[in-house]
């Protein structure tokens, strides 16, 4: 199992060709109180860098992008029911959706935890 990060502050946890996607702790801190999420339905095809979900805080609406291409296998219904999970447990129970990867080589362009931390520190 490996976790990768994007410059758009998503994380993706990969096991084989299955992955779980969410927003990082840094992202939820920037967004503030999350009050709504719009998640992709199972079966939807998403492409790398394309809009996959919407997260709305009290302040503003933001898009969540697909870190890699693939087919959505499961949206997190618990998050849809309780959007504050994105704040309280962003890199655990507050995951957004699961994905079956169509091209695992796309992972090569993503950051590991250490690179992502440096990236956030430079923001």
């Amino acid at each position: 199992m490996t976790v990768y990060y994007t410059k758009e502050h998503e994380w993706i946890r990969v096991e084989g060709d299955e992955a779980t996607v969410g927003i990082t702790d840094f992202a939820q801190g920037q967004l503030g109180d999350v009050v709504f999420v719009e998640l992709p339905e199972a079966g939807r095809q998403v492409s790398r860098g394309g809009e996959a979900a919407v997260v709305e805080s009290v302040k503003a609406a933001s898009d969540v992008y697909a870190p890699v291409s693939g087919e959505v296998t499961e949206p997190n219904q618990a998050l849809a029911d309780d959007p504050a999970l994105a704040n309280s447990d962003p890199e655990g129970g507050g995951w957004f959706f699961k994905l079956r990867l169509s091209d695992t080589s796309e992972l090569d362009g993503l950051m590991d935890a250490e690179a992502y931390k440096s990236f956030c520190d430079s923001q």
Partner: protein
Amino acid sequence: MSDAEAKSLPLDAWHRARGARMVPFAGYAMPIQYEGIIAEHKWTRESAGLFDVSHMGQLIVAGPEAQKGLESLLPADLAILKDGRLRYSLLLAEDAGIVDDLMATRRGDHFYVVVNGATKEGDIDYLRARLPRSVVIDHMKEQALLALQGPKAVDALARLAPGVEALGFMTGGAFQIGGIAAWISRSGYTGEDGFEISVPGAKVAEVAELLAAQPEVKPIGLGARDSLRLEAGLPLYGHDLDTETTPVEADLTFAISKRRRGEGGFAGWHRIARELEEGPIRRRVGLAVEGRQPVREGAMVVDAEGNEVGKVTSGGFSPILEAPIAMAYVPAASADVGTSVTLAQRGKLFQAKVVPMPFVPHRYHRKGAA
């Protein structure tokens, strides 16, 4: 505007030391939040929140013709305004567009006027161009402005400035806080009981420190200020009000006093009198939005064919109602409470219903009320 261009207010370091996230607003670096907007919002509704609103313009309008001059641009009856009392009013253009909204207090021989931060320079130019030459306008740049808002604001402030508890809603007076001269009025922008406190910028950190040390008080950012005023149904200039909207369209007819309605003699009166008689073509209303997704400023109000017939001017998630709420301008035919309207945002349609404002009841301290 980048952070580098934003000017600092006297409490800048004080906010940063308390962990505020600073953002540019109205040309200044301002605290948007401390611990989080929802927590700060609820704290203000339950206890007392301290807001720094020093970006706002504090003006003295003085001279023998000050009242007459102001009445030529405001629809308020200033003649009957007693010493130490304040009114919400509107600075109007000739075509009845709203140049700004403001608070005007009669204070001895002059008026103390508080205007919005983003519009203050333009307001001063407008006033100077339109008021008689004998009227003197002093922009008190050295004054800071705090607001202490919430049901426990009176307990906290009365400990430091005994006597404030005797002020009724929309009255003010001169007090001292820790030996520092303060003009305090019982007014605000949250729908709660509370106070606005004008003190010298050089001393505001001392005053903020004294207030924040009270157990009822926490500092609150602009984020919660916006969600609180939205729940209270209070318009925000530059969003819900601008030079393209009139006081009647904006549903602010309460600010057009009875005598002035009949007599006129202020900028925009002809159009306002006509709209009062015939009704405006569009009106600002409150909307309860179905579902949980906020519909925000800029969303469209659409008819059955999808044509734009109005616009959302403020919208967000109400922490108290735990539901999305909005203000919008809708055609007069759709402005009655209970009317269903359709909104469009980023290609998605939302159903909403016109509801009375405020969304959350006001709890002002009116004299004679329990």
